[in-house]
């Protein structure tokens, strides 16, 4: 079905890598050697002799009507081969992960700063950029809608609470940005008594700023026109098939004519689940008949992908004097920005995970996702749970303080365990060792007091006082995250596995479309095949759309779902091989197994070469986790999630209370992973997730003023450096989930969720300040 394609230089090839290492071992990455040499080809590294460069002209305004676009001056620039606007989009003009509401190129109206308006292809990137600057767009600038609560026309805290209503009618702020209004989703959870009372009540409002994935390798890819009128796209992404679906729709081409191959991915963290340059490069390639490369620079990257939703959350917790939670009421607003992206699912997670891993009889949650003219928000590691964890864990600390209880005791007293009922009415049917995670953290040794050396003070020598105002604080937090896709989504992966003997040596080849983004999935695929097929050499086929969908590399799901698919395909291959061996030897299949390149049984060792000869045994199959179901729209009840991940953090910080500077001294983390398929990779996920959570707690925020991004660079948007990351203590628990392959539990997101709230709790303990907003800035600590 594939037309002859020209392959760009550096395009991903088969990964062989070091042989050996089944599940449970620290098998090495098959792409490791390429990566340490810089030979692993990321999207930005691909190259073809006759390629053109594509650039995007973006809107400078967060909200405006386009009166006219004149592309003439750009077309007149020597070296320019094409200039495109929405009129040149042959298929659907809009796309989206869940709702197709985002224009490929702006149609009449722009709804956020940075919205793509036009495209240019030229023979040099600077020529393309210069030409794009000559496109004349006449805008009628409108006042942007920038507040999620106002956008919904809600009073600031609705009837659930008693506070003043500041906005009581549909105001200018709540002008409809989309025909259906500004509400993307409203999720309700209702359990128990609708008007509960309690001895002790704490009410607080929390805010979480907008975080950027800030993957180090910006959006990039290369589109190559094919002889059959279709296009080949090499791109860094998280989900090839959902890209393909949207690209086909925009190009008006069938899937056979839009073939995708995964280029090297320089980090993702959710930010590559939506399209960026995908359709644009294809449009330019099809128009010019030449390969077109697009590669965003850092500034454009800040506008080129969705961010983590900022959230405003009001929580009310009621408990008995003994510390038993009686009720939780929560009102959660996610600012989805200009287009829906994955806001509906983020609202789903935020709402159904929204009170944390605690058992509460009476729950009233309203979770909203709203359209505004802020940058679109969508997937980022932790997906809706990161924001709510800041709120519910802060509430647990506030409640503990109100009760005069130890915060860890209060958490343990109310913690869920296997058999508990979640707020969706689901019974937690796999281990939920929340108490053990916390107790193990408590038992870990504490770091030493800061040495009397200015260099160890918050801020180091350049910024600090002599430490007179430095206070140490300790904080704890727990995370609770659904693994894989929820709420009835048909969540599956496809794997093709082939076993053959090449040059006398048995070799398995694993082909899936599951995106490797750095997490080490290609290693896991090899490990599973080695364990299931008893061979050392496992080749990972390039990730492409020539095999069925693997679903998204997100929601901590790939080891579970694609791992499950690879395991199942290996089992099918093994079944066939053993059946042949049974025929050859007259032994029953049940007495045979694959081990070390041979079929073995009692007193039997038959090399695979003798069983297979020149044949290859190949199986392709789809694998699904057990189905989930949609939740009731009025009560939020239902079997919404297939699995939960739990981790806990203890943070130790030093805060210079005079200068408002924070130094995180140590992070400790405990996490239950069910089964560590690759223990070394699990540790890497915990370290990386911890770093990103710490970043959100104390430094990372995209600052938006009147809908405009103020800090689109690594000078002004700070991410943790090696000096910001403290030493870590990590303990990994392995309580098998009986429903999952090998008992494993998704790993990637949980540590990203509990890390930040633990840091916040520690700063709060050090300073005695309430601190209801993250990231915490120096002025929050000094009151200046």
């Amino acid at each position, binding site marked *: 079905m594939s037309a002859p394609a020209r392959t760009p*230089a*550096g395009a991903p090839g088969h990964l062989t890598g070091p042989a050996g290492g089944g599940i449970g071992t*620290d098998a*090495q*990455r098959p*792409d*490791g*050697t*390429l*990566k*340490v*040499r*810089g*030979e*692993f*080809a*990321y999207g*930005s*590294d691909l*190259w073809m002799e006759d390629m053109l460069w594509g650039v995007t002209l973006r809107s400078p305004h967060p909200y405006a009507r386009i009166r006219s676009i004149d592309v003439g001056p750009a077309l007149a620039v020597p070296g320019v081969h094409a200039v495109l606007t929405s009129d040149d989009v042959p298929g659907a003009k809009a796309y989206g992960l869940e709702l197709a509401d985002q224009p490929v190129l702006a149609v009449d109206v722009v709804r956020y700063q940075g919205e793509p308006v036009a495209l240019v292809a030229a023979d040099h990137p600077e020529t393309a950029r210069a030409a794009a600057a000559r496109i004349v767009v006449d805008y009628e600038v409108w006042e942007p809608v920038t507040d999620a609560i106002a956008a919904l026309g809600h009073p600031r805290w609705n009837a659930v609470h008693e506070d003043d209503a500041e906005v009581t009618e549909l105001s200018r702020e709540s002008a409809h940005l989309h025909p259906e209004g500004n509400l993307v989703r409203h999720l309700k959870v209702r359990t128990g008594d609708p008007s509960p009372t309690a001895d002790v009540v704490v009410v607080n409002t929390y805010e979480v700023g907008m975080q950027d*994935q*800030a*993957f*180090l*390798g*910006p959006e990039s890819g290369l589109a190559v026109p094919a002889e059959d009128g279709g296009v080949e796209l090499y791109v860094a992404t998280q989900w090839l098939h959902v890209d393909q679906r949207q690209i086909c729709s925009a190009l008006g081409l069938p899937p056979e004519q839009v073939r995708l191959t995964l280029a*090297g991915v*320089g*980090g*993702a963290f959710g930010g590559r689940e939506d399209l960026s340059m995908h359709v644009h490069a294809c449009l330019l390639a099809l128009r010019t008949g030449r390969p077109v490369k697009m*590669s965003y*620079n*850092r500034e454009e990257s800040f506008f080129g992908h969705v961010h983590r939703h900022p959230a405003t959350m009001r929580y009310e917790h009621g408990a008995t004097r003994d510390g038993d939670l009686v009720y939780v009421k929560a009102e959660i607003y996610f600012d989805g920005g200009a287009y829906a992206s994955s806001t509906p699912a983020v609202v789903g997670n935020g709402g159904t995970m929204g009170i944390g891993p605690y058992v509460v009889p009476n729950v009233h949650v309203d979770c909203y996702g709203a359209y505004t003219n802020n940058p679109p928000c969508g997937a980022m590691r932790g997906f809706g749970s990161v924001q709510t964890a800041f709120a519910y864990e802060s509430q647990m600390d506030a409640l503990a303080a109100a009760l005069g209880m130890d915060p860890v005791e209060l958490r343990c007293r109310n913690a869920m365990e296997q058999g508990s009922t979640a707020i969706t009415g689901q019974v937690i049917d796999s281990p939920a060792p929340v108490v053990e995670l916390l107790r193990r953290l408590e038992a870990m040794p504490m770091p030493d007091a800061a040495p009397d050396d200015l*260099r160890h003070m918050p801020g*180091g*020598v350049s910024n600090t006082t002599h430490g007179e105002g430095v206070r140490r604080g300790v904080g704890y937090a727990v995370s609770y995250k659904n693994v894989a896709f929820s709420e009835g989504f048909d969540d599956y992966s496809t794997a093709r596995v082939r076993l053959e003997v090449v040059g006398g040596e048995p070799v398995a080849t694993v082909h899936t479309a599951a995106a490797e*983004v*750095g*997490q*080490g999935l290609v290693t896991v695929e090899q490990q599973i095949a080695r364990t299931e097929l008893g061979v050392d050499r496992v080749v990972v086929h390039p990730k492409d759309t020539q095999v069925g969908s693997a679903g998204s590399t997100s929601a901590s799901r790939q080891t579970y779902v694609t791992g499950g698919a690879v395991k199942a395909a290996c089992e099918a291959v093994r079944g066939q091989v053993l059946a042949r061996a049974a025929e050859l030897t007259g032994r029953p299949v049940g007495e045979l197994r694959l081990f070390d390149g041979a079929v073995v049984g009692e007193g039997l060792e038959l090399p695979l070469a003798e069983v297979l000869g020149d044949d290859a045994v190949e199986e392709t199959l789809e694998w699904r986790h057990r189905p989930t179901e949609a939740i009731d729209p009025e009560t939020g009840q239902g079997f919404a999630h297939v699995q939960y991940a739990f981790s806990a953090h203890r943070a130790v910080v030093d805060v210079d209370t005079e200068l408002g500077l924070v130094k995180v001294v140590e992070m400790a983390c405990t996490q239950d992973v069910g089964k560590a398929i690759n223990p*070394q*990779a699990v540790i*890497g996920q915990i*370290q*990386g*997730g*911890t*770093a*990103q959570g710490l970043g959100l707690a104390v430094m990372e925020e995209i600052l938006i003023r009147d809908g405009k991004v103020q800090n689109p*660079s*690594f*000078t002004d948007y700070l*991410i*943790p*450096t*090696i*000096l910001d*990351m403290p*030493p*870590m203590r990590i303990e990994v628990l392995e309580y098998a989930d009986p429903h999952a392959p090998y008992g494993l539990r998704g790993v990637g997101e949980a540590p990203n969720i509990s890390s930040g709230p633990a840091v916040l709790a520690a700063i709060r303990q050090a300073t005695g300040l309430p601190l209801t907003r993250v990231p915490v800035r120096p002025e929050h600590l000094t009151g200046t």
Partner: protein
Amino acid sequence: MDADITLTVDGAQQRLTVDTRTTLLDALRERIGNTSPKKGCDHGQCGACTVLLDGDRALSCLALAVAHDGAEITTADGLAADGELHPVQQAFLERDAFQCGYCTPGQVCSAVGVLDEVRRGWPSHASQDLTADPELSHDEVAERMSGNLCRCGAYANIVPAVRQAGGVQA
């Protein structure tokens, strides 16, 4: 304006004509086709473009190619000449000191530079004694590697990898 320059890149001499505004990073990646150094920011903020320039580590996105006519440049790829990995690269592999790998060629070049600076006795902000030879302590390595961002957060493995390559049993 164009200028003719000669660069020795990973041992091979390259003659090229560049627009004088071309960065060393773009000259390497777009003109010579050596994509080992990565572009993470193009503004000197991330370290992904680090190469060894006449033996010292340098951010190639902040260097103009014309200013380095005649220079000798080693990229992470060139460190592994003849297919044999450099000890720093081997240590990064053994310590799993990366995930996506986008920062890695820069980290590796930077680490090679760090080890050399320490060997030459250059003190840093973290050095305990400015008159003695610096030790390859955790703080010393972290301080010197702090110009190389890793969004995947592999920092906890980068420090031991650099120390291991420097001969410290960690």
